[in-house]
Structure formats: structure tokens, C-alpha cells
């Protein structure tokens, strides 16, 4: 039984312009202690998936169907139907959350100590002194320099990297089974990103926390994740263990993404994926990648949604031609429209 099991999740936004299905039938499973990378470009629905897990989808968004099953010592809760009161215990308790922008996710008028202490006391019935001791312990855990002093400082007095450490300390304060990290290093510089990723990996090894890492950066995924799910236009198009996915990508979108990254000196134009990322309200019919696909383009692609097939153990691809696509071959380099 996986720790978190998402089945056929559909989350849509009901705007005055019509229904916008941001997440459209996503199934994902995270085992205890594993790191799953959820990769995709802007508007692919990766963040909405994370918000759905926590029941924090903002109006006018609603979870229309599907199950989000969280395993807890043999008992299984469906987070979709769980009452708000119980859901609050899950958030910050059994599931911790790390956001992209640590400056806006921390309250500027409270000290670091106050904020970690609050996170602890929301979920545990402890005295203020004990909670403060726990906060200090957490700051030590995330290897914050000079933790006693930091406890009484305000978010603006810390650098971006230190703020992200505070966010991690808050997320881990109640020893969650799962941490959702939504672009945790996107706002940081590469040398700071390296520090934070190393810290996350180290904590995962020591605490056995499962991590759902949401990112657009394939390099980050390659270096930190056990499993990878690639999302495109509200659906998962490919899912595999990380080593397998990067060595043998099978979906045309994954192949295109990997090929579009510049590596080394220029020796001809970069391979591109033509066209642009569709906004959720203009998702095309059939295979949602078909207008930009440079491989097979049968009439079927435009009308029929391909199934997510298992082509090798643990390797799922949403493309009927996955077997034929084999190891990446460059598509015809072209200029974009």
C-alpha cells in the first residue's frame, strides 16, 4: 500500500469563461521514503495537483472527481471527502508543505521562532517552552547557522536560502510522512539551490520522509528523485523510475524536453518543440500534445485520448507509438511559428 495514492483526480476551475480542467485524470502513487518528481511546464497542472492533495484549491477551483488516499498505520483516509476539520490536522501534520517563494510564505510580522512554534503547537499539545525547544531543534536539523539567534529574527533579516531552510524546518516540525515541495529552489541561485537540495536529500535519508518534488527543472529531478512523472496539459504523459526515464524517454514530449536543453558548445540549432504550451482553457482534443508532436501524427491522435500504458515494468507512457520511438532521436530542427 503506497503512502499516498491519487486516483483519477480531476480538478477544474469554473470561471466566467467556462470550465477549465487544470488537472484532468491524474493518478500517482508515492511509496514511503521515496522521492517522486512531478515535472512539467507552466500551466500543466502540477501545482494544482499539489494543492488538491492538501485541499487548498482556491475558488473557483473544485475537485470534481477522483480519490486521494493517504495511508496512516493501516487506516486509509480519502483526502477528497475528509471533513475540513480533519484535513487541517493532515496539513502540516502528516503532510508538510514547502513553497517556491519563501519570502511570501513566511509572515513578515512574526519571528522565525514564533512561526515554527505555531506550526508545532497547531498539531501537538505541548507547552510553549517545549515547542520553542522543538523549533530550535528543527533549526539545527536544517543546519541553520547560529540557530539561537535566528529564532528571534524576522523573515526579512534572513537571506533567501536561510528563509527556505526555515520553510523546511516548519514543514518537518511535526514529523510528516510526506513533504510536498513546490518548486523549492526555483527562486534561489544555483549555489544555494545545491545547498537546499543536499539538505532535503539528507533529511529524507535520516527521517524517512517521502517527498513530492514539483519542478520544471529536469536537472533537479535527475539528481534528486527516485521516480518521475511528466505532466503535460493536465495529464501525466510519462512516468518511470528516474534512471529509466532519462536513459529511455518514450513520450514525444519528454523526448523533446530533454533534447531542447542546451548541452555543451553550439554545434547546430537546438532541437525545439514547435508551438507553445497551451493554456488550460485551450487544451486540444485527443492527445493533448498532438499539435506540437513531431513524431507520428495519425488521425487517431487528434480525436482519441491515448491510454497510459505500461510498456516496461514501472514505465508508463501515454502514447500508442511509445515502443517505436525508442531512444531519443532528434526531431527536425525547425523555427517556431
Amino acid at each position, binding site marked *: 500500500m503506497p503512502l499516498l495514492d491519487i486516483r483519477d483526480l480531476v480538478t477544474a476551475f469554473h470561471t*466566467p469563461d467556462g470550465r477549465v480542467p487544470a488537472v484532468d485524470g491524474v493518478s500517482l502513487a508515492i511509496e514511503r521514503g521515496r522521492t517522486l518528481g512531478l515535472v512539467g511546464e507552466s500551466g500543466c497542472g502540477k501545482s494544482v495537483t499539489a494543492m488538491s492533495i492538501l485541499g487548498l484549491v482556491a475558488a473557483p477551483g473544485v475537485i470534481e472527481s477522483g480519490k486521494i488516499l493517504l495511508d496512516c498505520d493501516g487506516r486509509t483516509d480519502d483526502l477528497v471527502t475528509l471533513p475540513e476539520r480533519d484535513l487541517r490536522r493532515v496539513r502540516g501534520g502528516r503532510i508538510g508543505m514547502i513553497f517556491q517563494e519563501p519570502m511570501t510564505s513566511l509572515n513578515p510580522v512574526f519571528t522565525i521562532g514564533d512561526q515554527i512554534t505555531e506550526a508545532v503547537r497547531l498539531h501537538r499539545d505541548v507547552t510553549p517552552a517545549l515547542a520553542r525547544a522543538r523549533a530550535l531543534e528543527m533549526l539545527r536539523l536544517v543546519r541553520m547557522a547560529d540557530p539561537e539567534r535566528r529564532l528571534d529574527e524576522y523573515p526579512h533579516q534572513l537571506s533567501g536560502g536561510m528563509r527556505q531552510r526555515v520553510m523546511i524546518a516548519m514543514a518537518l516540525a511535526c514529523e510528516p510522512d510526506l513533504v510536498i515541495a513546490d518548486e523549492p529552489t526555483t527562486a534561489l541561485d544555483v549555489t544555494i539551490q545545491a545547498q537546499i537540495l543536499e539538505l532535503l536529500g539528507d533529511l529524507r535519508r535520516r527521517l524517512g520522509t517521502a517527498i513530492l518534488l514539483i519542478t520544471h527543472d529536469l536537472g533537479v529531478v535527475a539528481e534528486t528523485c527516485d521516480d518521475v512523472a511528466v505532466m503535460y496539459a493536465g495529464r501525466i504523459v510519462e512516468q518511470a523510475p528516474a534512471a529509466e526515464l532519462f536513459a529511455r524517454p518514450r513520450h514525444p514530449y519528454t523526448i523533446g524536453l530533454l533534447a531542447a536543453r542546451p548541452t555543451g558548445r553550439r554545434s547546430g540549432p537546438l532541437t525545439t518543440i514547435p508551438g507553445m504550451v497551451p*493554456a488550460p482553457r*485551450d487544451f486540444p482534443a485527443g492527445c493533448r500534445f498532438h499539435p506540437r508532436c513531431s513524431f507520428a501524427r495519425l488521425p487517431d491522435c487528434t480525436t482519441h485520448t491515448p491510454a497510459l500504458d505500461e510498456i516496461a515494468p514501472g514505465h508508463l507512457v501515454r502514447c500508442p507509438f511509445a515502443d517505436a520511438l525508442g531512444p531519443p532521436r532528434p526531431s527536425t530542427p525547425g523555427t517556431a*511559428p
Partner: protein
Amino acid sequence: MTTETRTTGFWGDAWRRYRRRPLAVAAAAFVGGLVLVAILSPAIAGTKPVLCRYKGRIYAPCLAYFARDLEPAIFARDRFRGTYPRNLVEKDPESWAVWPLVFQDPYRSVRADEWPGLPANPARDEGRPSRRNLFGTDQAGVDVFAKMVHGTTIALLVGFVSMGIAGTIGVAVGAVGGYFGGWIDMLTSRITEIVMCIPTLVLILAVIAVIEKPTIWHTMAIIGATGWTGIARLTRGEFLRLKESEFVLAARAAGAGPARIMLRHILPNALAPVLVPITFGIASAVLLESSLSFLGFGPPPPTASWGSILNDARSNLAMWWLVVFPGIAIFLTVLAYNLIGEALQESTDPRLREARK
């Protein structure tokens, strides 16, 4: 290329979102209605024909309600003395006339038989609302409905003129201070703070006391000259923010000078947020004028203003209609401007705009 075919500019887009708020649309329609009433006031209530044929020529004596000089001289020569119905028939049997919807005058009581078969207006306590006097009559027997219809012009002018003045000063001062910064900003900010300390009401009372013939225009000018501070502060903030934006840097990189950057690049982007306090300012100007008139410092008679009708009620509170009708009119007008302001704020909010994407 883009799949969208519909091209909407900023204001088209804002209007699209404004339209989704039925209350705000109703408020805008209400203000539009007031404008119509103000323009058509002589045709709605009055004792002068909208159009008439007299001695072979066509006249529009109703224009006299806008300005006294517009009353055709021939009627004065023929000694009409303001009473048209009988005089027209007696002095030219061939004549015809188109009359206002309600034969009542905002400046005087209608006498008996001025209109064939119509008795004189009642006065004082007797003047309660009736079929003839829809909103009743005041102490002197003047029809309240007619007064209110003709007072619409003032209610509108007070808001638009004073906020027109305030908006112009405020945007100019805020723009210059925000864009140039340094000592210029220091100067404009201090001036703004000083003006902010001036109590508008006291200043108006003082000016009215000093000026020999105070008119409603003086009041409007003072409200405008003191009411720009909030607008200036907001404009300054917007200019400070926008002058650092990349599209302004791009314009500078293309060689654009300060005037071009301020007028063409920053101002259109700063205008929407500034419109909001202007709208709220209109509401408070209307309220201020009403309060002044109520206290008896309004435009001198015979100028009709809603507030001055309220003032009449002070001497005889039994005449409830003198409180209720203008009160409701003032309340609805102020409410409408506030609703419009709020809807403008929401429909031009840049954060909501981007969320549309």
C-alpha cells in the same frame, strides 16, 4: 499564432469584468439617468413651453432655465411676466406649444388658474405629496419635484467639476513628484501634506463669508483645490512603481524623454487606480455640498439644490417630505458613486487581470 481572435484593450477588458456586477451596472445606469434628467430638466418640470409657435415663429422658452439670457426677448416685450399658458392663447390665438411633462416651477409657486383649471400650489403643512405635487411643496408653495429635477444639475456638477479640478491637480503633482524624485518629490510631498491639513468645510465657510456674491462655483473650486491630496499620493506611488518597470526602461533605451515616458507610458497605466479615489471623491463632494446647503451655506436662492430643500425642512419638521425625497436622492447618488468606485477598483485590478490568462 494565437488562437484568440478577439482583441480587447485594457478598458474593453475592464468593462467586460465591470459588466459582471449587476449592482455596479445599475449604479452606472442611475448616474447616466441623472445626467439625462439634468439635461432634460426643463422638459420634465417647468412652466415655460419646451417649444412654441408665437406670431409666426418657433421659440424654445424652456432654455431660460439654463440661462436667463436664453429666454426670447419677444416674450418680455409682450409682457408675459413668466406666465405662458394664458398669454400665449390671448396674444396669438394661432399659437401652439409643447409643454413640460409636469407644469410646476422650481423657483416659484404656481398660481391659481395659471394653467387652465389648476388651483394654486398649497404651502407649508398643507403641501404634502399629492397627484399634482408629486413630492409635495415647500414653505413657499414651490413644487419639490420640480426643485429636485432642476437640482440634479448641481448635484452632478458639484461632483464632476470639483473632482475634475482635484484630479487634474492631484495627477499633475503626484506625477511630477513620483517621476523626478529627489528635492522635487520632497517639495510636492510637503505641499501635499500642508494642503491635507486644511479643513475644507471651514475654508468654504470663510470664503463664503468674505465673497460678496458666493455661488456654487466657488464651493466647487474650493472642494477641488483642497481635495486632490489623496489622488496626488496615489499617483505618486504609481509613478514611483512604474518608473522602475521594464517597459519604461525599454522606452528609455529607445531614447524616449521624460515627457513621453510620463504621458505615454506611465500615465495610462496609472490612470485606472487613480480613477477609484476620484469616483469616491465625487461621492464625498456631493455629500459635502448637501451638508453645506443643509446648514444654509449652499448656493443662494433661487438656485435649487437637494441640500437646500433639506434646509427648508429645518424650520418645520412636520413637512417630512422635505426630508425624505431629497434625502433618498442624495443617499442613492452617493451610494451609486461608491458602488461604481468599488467596481472600478476590482475590474481594473492588475492582479485580477493577469489571473485571466
